[in-house]
């Protein structure tokens, strides 16, 4: 049997109503220094977890979030015993406290934005001045032609990046006012202009949602995927440790890794 960990939270109180976790096992807490780790027992041959389990994990973390500030653990985090969980909590107590203090009364929102990369590129190409023969010292030899072709692609790429940055700044500007922290990733695929997560004060989330609603109402060629509020999955900061983790912790790579 293993202990499946859902989150660490800033409460040591037992749940008022029963909460069920993976395999419908009751979720309990292991208290330590004003905090607790929410866990349930997991008895499964091979310990394999699937997509349905991920949904249960998420549902439990969300439920915990209504009770206390939570630091969600990575899906699939297992420990061998309550003692090992306690050791982990003691080792990380300062980081947990820092994170809990920073994330208290804050929630995460996610925004993904698609842009029509092909049509934007066509517009960019049309905006380019016609290439002059022999411009930039590019000759008509095979090597010169190759360089001319690559230089054209380079210029288009530069202009696409400029346009992407302009649009991302415009989107981000709408949300910055309501945002405590943010993480932006640009152009993970040619069409995925922006993948962003924002940390928002709980009592500012209505304004944040309104900012999205206003943006979404405007005409344009962007498509949005907006969701939240979520537990602050992307804003827990844990220091990287170079020393190996304890040898008797099951599933070492994820044993003390928060999302």
């Amino acid at each position, binding site marked *: 049997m293993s202990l499946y960990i859902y989150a660490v939270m800033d409460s040591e109180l037992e749940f008022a109503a029963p909460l069920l976790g993976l395999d419908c096992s009751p979720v309990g807490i292991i208290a330590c220094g004003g905090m607790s780790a929410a866990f349930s027992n997991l008895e499964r041959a091979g310990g394999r977890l699937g997509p349905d389990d991920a949904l249960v994990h998420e549902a439990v973390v*969300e439920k915990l*979030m*209504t009770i206390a500030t939570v630091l969600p653990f990575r899906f699939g985090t297992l420990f061998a015993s309550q003692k090992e969980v306690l050791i982990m909590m003691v080792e990380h107590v300062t980081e947990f406290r820092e994170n809990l203090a920073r994330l208290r009364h804050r929630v995460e929102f996610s925004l*993904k934005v*698609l842009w029509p990369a092909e049509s934007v590129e066509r517009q960019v190409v049309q905006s380019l001045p016609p290439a002059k023969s022999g411009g*930039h*010292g*590019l*000759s008509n*030899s*095979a*090597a*010169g032609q*190759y*360089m001319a072709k*690559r*230089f054209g692609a*380079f*210029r288009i790429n530069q202009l696409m990046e400029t346009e992407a940055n302009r649009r991302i700044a415009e989107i981000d500007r709408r949300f910055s006012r309501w945002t405590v922290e943010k993480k932006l990733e640009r152009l*993970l*695929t040619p*069409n*995925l202009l922006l*993948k962003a997560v924002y940390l928002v004060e709980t009592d500012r989330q209505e304004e944040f*949602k309104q900012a999205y609603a206003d943006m*979404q109402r405007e005409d344009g060629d962007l*498509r*949005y*995927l*907006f*969701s*939240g*509020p*979520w537990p602050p999955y992307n804003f827990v900061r844990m220091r990287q440790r170079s020393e190996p983790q304890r040898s008797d912790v099951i599933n070492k790579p994820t044993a003390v890794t928060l999302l």
Partner: protein
Amino acid sequence: MNRIVETDAPEAFAQELAQVSNILPRRIEANPDNVDKGLAKLVLTLIELIRKLMEKQAMRRVENGSLTDEEIERVGETLMKLEQKMGELKQVFGLKDEDLNLHLGPLGDLM
């Protein structure tokens, strides 16, 4: 909790996000059956990275006008031959352009 999950293009997002999650293997596949290909993939990925950096630098210098005509000719020939050679090697090892990348965990993708 009043959770919102809202989109005007669910299928398009599903497609793009599947690309993001499947774009790269999480580790180099090297086992007794495919060790040649695994190593070739790693080596060619690094060469491709260097090639792209060289090309980008060359383009910047072309743009700034800091290369002579002769230098542009020479750089062009080098890059062209390197690209051809990379194409041949990719063919030999059955690799595609999208195979030449590495996921570097929290650092993101190599290219």
